């Protein structure tokens, strides 16, 4: 029951949710508790969060787990001690003839709306219990907490959209702030769960955090920003690659003439050694991007990668393909807006022929004819595609000649590795000639960036 034991349990729970909580982190959190007033709940949470959760995503998970953990801990202790709330708003199990029946529902609605508009958490807690006593009748209860919460919210008439029937000074007139309303729902949910636990005298099994709980609130726009960030980093890395290599290998060439000249200043002693300047390698990149229907979901991601790459590199040529290949370098150079680019490509790239299915063999042949004379050992070829040939000949031999001419060849596959080579996926035909990466999150894109920027020793 002691606090250190609880903290260790919390650490365990966090590990279960995927946070890297090591012994040293836990030791830190104990050290931290020695320094702050940990009777204050907020301070307590903030202080151990600083030692246990070390990224914004982790922090989100931490808050969810923390909340749940201490709620459960308190309830477990209450069951053990046999504490039952008497006369209070027991929610679903509340008494029929108590305070509940005398509450003026309209007045309650108004008060709750006011408290939500003010964002007053303490009042919200009180009002939630009152509301449960008033409208949380057991015979209406569905037994599913989520459904009950929504039912109660409807009964209370709490909506985020403006309700012009109310007088202008009523907060409901302009609609209620969504975030506070969500907080209020969370409180109601908590109370309902508490009532349920009290009734059944058992804790519901703790459910592992779903992906939904920890997902970032993000749309495609946020993804686009993330892709841009990764690619910006890619550019920086490529730009300094030459310098890095010098540090790693230290094979500078001494510029003898300039060293001798400089030594005249120090009486002929070569104190300052002059080196020949090293030119960083200018990357030249060819990107081929599959835009067929089998990769529809991924092609937005890929196009945004392409878009970001174009922002970053001048010497880059990009192509999109389905059955045929078409160069879109121009489109990207003209248009900086991502949406316009994807529309332009969809409208007139002219890559679909008859079937609309990818034909890799033909694409390689056309690509070879297009760029054969330009390819050289310093060029990097990047293919974005799922290697699904729809049963056609993969023509790995042509791909091999392209790969042999280019310095390095990479393949980014939007499918999880698990699905590779299943069905009509023929990625294995190509892997002898290139390095293949699975790439469907920005995280994996970062791995690719790392690989791309490690200098190639040949």
């Amino acid at each position, binding site marked *: 029951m002691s606090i250190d034991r609880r903290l260790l349990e919390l650490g365990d729970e966090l590990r279960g949710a995927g946070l*890297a909580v*090591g012994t*040293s*982190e836990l030791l*830190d959190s104990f*050290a*931290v508790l020695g*320094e*702050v007033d940990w009777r204050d709940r*907020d*301070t307590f949470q*903030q*202080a151990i*969060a*600083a*030692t246990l*959760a*070390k*990224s*914004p995503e982790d*922090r989100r998970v931490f808050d969810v787990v923390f909340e749940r953990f201490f709620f459960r801990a308190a309830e477990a202790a209450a069951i053990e001690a046999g504490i039952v709330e008497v006369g209070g708003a027991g929610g679903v199990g509340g008494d029929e003839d108590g305070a509940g029946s005398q509450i003026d529902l309209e007045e309650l609605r108004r008060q709750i709306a006011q408290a939500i508009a003010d964002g007053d958490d303490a009042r919200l807690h009180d009002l939630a219990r009152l509301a449960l006593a008033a409208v949380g009748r057991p015979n209406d209860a569905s037994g599913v907490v989520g459904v009950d919460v929504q039912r109660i919210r409807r009964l209370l008439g709490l909506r985020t959209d403006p309700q012009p029937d109310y007088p202008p000074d009523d907060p409901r007139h302009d609609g209620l702030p969504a975030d506070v309303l969500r907080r209020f729902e969370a409180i109601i949910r908590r109370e309902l769960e508490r009532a349920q636990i009290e009734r059944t005298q058992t804790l519901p099994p703790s459910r592992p955090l779903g992906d939904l709980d920890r997902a970032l609130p993000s749309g495609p*726009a946020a993804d*686009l*920003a993330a892709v*841009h*960030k990764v690619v*910006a*980093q890619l550019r*920086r*890395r490529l*730009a*300094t690659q030459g*310098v*890095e290599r010098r*540090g790693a290998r230290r094979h500078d060439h001494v510029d003898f003439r300039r060293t001798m000249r400089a030594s005249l200043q120090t009486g002929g*002693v070569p*104190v*300052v050694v002059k080196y020949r300047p090293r030119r960083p390698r200018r990357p030249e990149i060819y990107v081929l991007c599959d835009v067929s229907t089998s990769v529809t979901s991924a092609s937005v991601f890929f196009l945004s990668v392409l878009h970001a790459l174009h922002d970053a590199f001048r010497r880059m040529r990009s192509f999109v393909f389905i059955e045929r290949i078409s160069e879109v370098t121009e489109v990207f150079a003209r248009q*900086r*807006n991502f949406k316009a680019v994807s529309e332009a490509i969809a409208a007139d790239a002219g890559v679909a022929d008859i079937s609309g299915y990818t034909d890799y063999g033909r694409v390689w042949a056309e690509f070879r004819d297009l760029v054969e004379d330009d390819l050289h050992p310093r060029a990097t070829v990047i293919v974005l595609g799922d290697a699904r040939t729809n049963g056609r000949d993969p023509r790995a031999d042509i791909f091999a000649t392209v790969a042999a001419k280019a310095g390095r060849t990479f393949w980014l596959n939007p499918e999880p590795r698990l699905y590779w080579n299943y069905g009509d996926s023929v990625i294995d035909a190509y892997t002898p000639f290139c390095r293949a990466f699975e790439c469907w999150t920005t*995280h994996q894109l*970062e791995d690719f960036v790392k690989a791309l920027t490690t200098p190639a020793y040949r």
Partner: protein
Amino acid sequence: MSALPESVEEIAGGLLAAGYLAGESTALVTYLATRLDKPVLVEGPAGVGKTELAKALAGFLGRDLVRLQCYEGLDEAKALYEWNYRKQLLRIQAESDGTGWSEVQDDIFGEEFLLARPLLAAISSATPVVLLIDEIDKSDQEFEAMLLELLSDFQITIPELGRIAATSQPVVVLTSNNSRELTEALKRRCLYLWLDYPTVERELEIVRLHAPELAETVARKLVEVVAMVRELDLKKPPSIAESIDWARALLLLGSTDIDSTTFTDTMSVIVKHRTDLELVAERVGLALAS
């Protein structure tokens, strides 16, 4: 030099006196860092005051600020120490006759020939300092690995000299824009603080703190507009520093209200991309006009 702070409130007050309005968790984590001698890793979007925090902390504690700006390709010669090889060479020249190899060798690898770079300077300083390692995410992973010894044990190992332990305990602040994932090993050694864009109320306080002459109504409108701009999907959302700049610009122009003309004229202070400018002009300009 003032002593270490005794309470969270004291540090919050001290930072405020140094011109930094710290949030609750900021003050708490900073307090813990000074009490526990742990480095703090501060992450957040650009321009939310990560670097300012270190500066204000140095001001409040009355310590010198040693700053190491990280960049791609930063290596130990620029961050930790370097042998002053010109001096070594001259030394060899000066007494080339009569001295044996071992004496010269012992001689030229002494502290006299060591050039202290920021990290070594920070731990070998006579009075404790605040060490700011700025934008650690811009450096390479190898560099991060090199920092580990310093961050956990406050010591540096120089092969020719041996271990150099800290003569004074610096308060270490690392900042990162989260442009790449830092290694677990580094994070493990730090306390973590995530700074985000402030709420409208807090930003209003910050703007009022830095531009007190600006009328309250204008300042309020300003932060509301900035919050609105941040909602849009921009390449670079405006930072706190830019809202303060904007407030000062409005002061300079003597504006008494932000209408759509003032906004279009001055919005380049907070929005710095051509495509962003168009988007903002369209959306916010409309909202202001109505």
